[in-house]
């Protein structure tokens, strides 16, 4: 009898790998170069999907934390923690890739643009969540404190999304231009799908590990 979970995990890995190979070809070879920004515009095919997943992660953390607060079920907390760990990686990558794009286009590595500032705040929320989990004594209280941080952090996600609409920002509005070249649109969508599949694959891996970690911790507590 085939192990369904392992089969799903392997399939996700295989699909993710194949789609990423295609993605690399599209970004570096196939897609046309943008007139004004040149090659640096291709950074968007990494930066935007990473930004999208950074925001999705905090929403997953918040929903899982909220459910954990209500049900007290350990599995929701495991999911929240796993997504927070991935979230800080994505949030860090948003800031780093954004800075690398900003240098040739804006001439600076960093500016206090509303979108950048709110993204930095999101990064601090992730950091706060993980620090509370690391430094609080093991038990139900640290999980509750971190859940509250996640819920407050989730408020930042729509603010990041709407920052360029609500305030004067150098970032474009969060919608796909209607006159966007087809090749650019296809590359962007494939990039978005490939990063999302990678997120699901790694989240699944981390969740399974966290589940075993929690069980081992519980056994140690029983023994001691």
């Amino acid at each position: 009898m085939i192990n369904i979970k392992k089969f799903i995990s392997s399939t996700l890995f295989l699909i993710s790998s194949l789609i990423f190979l295609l993605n690399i070809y599209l970004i570096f070879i196939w897609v046309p170069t943008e007139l004004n920004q040149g090659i640096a515009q291709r950074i968007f095919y990494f930066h935007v999907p990473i930004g999208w997943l950074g925001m999705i992660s905090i929403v997953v953390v918040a929903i899982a934390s909220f459910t954990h607060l209500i049900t007290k079920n350990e599995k929701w907390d495991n999911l929240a923690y796993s997504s927070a760990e991935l979230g800080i990686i994505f949030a860090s990558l948003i800031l780093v890739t954004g800075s690398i794009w900003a240098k040739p286009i804006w001439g600076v590595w960093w500016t206090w643009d509303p979108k950048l500032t709110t993204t930095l705040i999101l990064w601090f929320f992730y950091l706060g969540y993980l620090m509370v989990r690391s430094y609080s004594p093991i038990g139900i209280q640290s999980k509750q404190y971190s859940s509250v941080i996640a819920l407050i952090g989730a408020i930042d996600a729509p603010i990041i999304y709407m920052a360029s609409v609500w305030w004067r920002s150098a970032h474009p509005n969060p919608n796909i231009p209607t006159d966007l070249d087809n090749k650019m649109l296809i590359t962007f969508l494939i990039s978005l799908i490939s990063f999302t599949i990678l997120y699901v694959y790694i989240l699944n891996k981390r969740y399974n590990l966290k589940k075993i970690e929690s069980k081992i911790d519980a056994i140690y507590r029983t023994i001691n």
Partner: protein
Amino acid sequence: MQYIEQLTKKSFLKMLIAALIIGFMFFFTQDVIFSNYSTNITNEFYKVTDTHKQETSSNLIYLFAVFFITWVAFFGYLFFLSKKQQDIMRDVKELENILSQDKSKNI
């Protein structure tokens, strides 16, 4: 079905795919990274002028930096996960030892 079952059990398949990804990354990107300018501008609308050529070629390093940092972050995290897995295996062995010691004491 049995063939798929066997494939899922073999971890070397994952390593092979990872190696293929890295290989393809360099294969696909070498033209862009090592050339002065990408020649794939086929769309009339996106044609660039000579002055832009200079700018775009100098921006290649930024694109490659993003590409490199993104993958280093992902592979670094996967490495962290594999270390975690090793720690868990060590904990399981430790628990097994504790259990076997308890059993021998009871006997």
